[in-house]
């Protein structure tokens, strides 16, 4: 399923990615951005829509374009491209809302067998990080490429 993703434009440093979601609400440009945080080698996965009028990005927009699986697969594809370039990094992802965090969890769950071939995957519980398991609610996710 991860193969069914949108065409992606990448910045030369492979830290910013753009693609166009096409669905019931029309064409919506989405951006994925990997930003290094305070811990060296750790990057935040930021993901949001561009406002067609202002051009500004928001990670709170609910698109409902009917293509969430394809969008998640595209985000996953950017993760592969990013970690192909920076294999030693660790990427942390948190949803901007509980609904979006659940969506991330579903996306990982549905593709866990494929993802675990290439990545260590962790989920954050109230007691700390643990290897990702299906059917557990996590507050954040962390992935690192298997080398």
């Amino acid at each position, binding site marked *: 399923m991860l193969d069914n993703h949108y065409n992606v*434009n*990448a910045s030369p440093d492979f830290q910013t990615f753009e693609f166009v979601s096409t669905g019931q609400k029309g064409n919506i440009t989405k951006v994925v951005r990997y930003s290094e*945080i305070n811990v060296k080698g750790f990057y*935040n996965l930021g993901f949001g829509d561009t406002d067609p009028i202002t051009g500004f990005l928001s990670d709170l927009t609910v698109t409902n374009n009917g293509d969430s699986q394809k969008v998640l697969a595209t985000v996953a*594809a950017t993760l592969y491209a990013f970690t192909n370039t*920076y294999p030693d990094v660790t990427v942390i992802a948190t949803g901007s809302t509980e609904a979006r965090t659940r969506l991330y969890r579903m996306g990982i769950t549905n593709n866990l067998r494929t993802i675990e071939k290439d990545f260590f995957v962790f989920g*954050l519980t109230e007691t700390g990080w643990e290897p990702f398991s299906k059917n557990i609610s996590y507050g954040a996710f962390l992935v690192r490429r298997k080398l």
Partner: protein
Amino acid sequence: MKAKTVAGKKKLPKSFKVKTTLTGKYADQPLFKDKIERANHILKTVGLPKV
């Protein structure tokens, strides 16, 4: 951070194109600032997983 490509995985998928126009395109926007702050907070308070 210096780019270091995974061995044997250098080829970019056909569905990806490098666009120099993306460099700095969103430089004037505080991209996903809340998420970055949350990620920093999590790693500061919870720590790192054992990989």
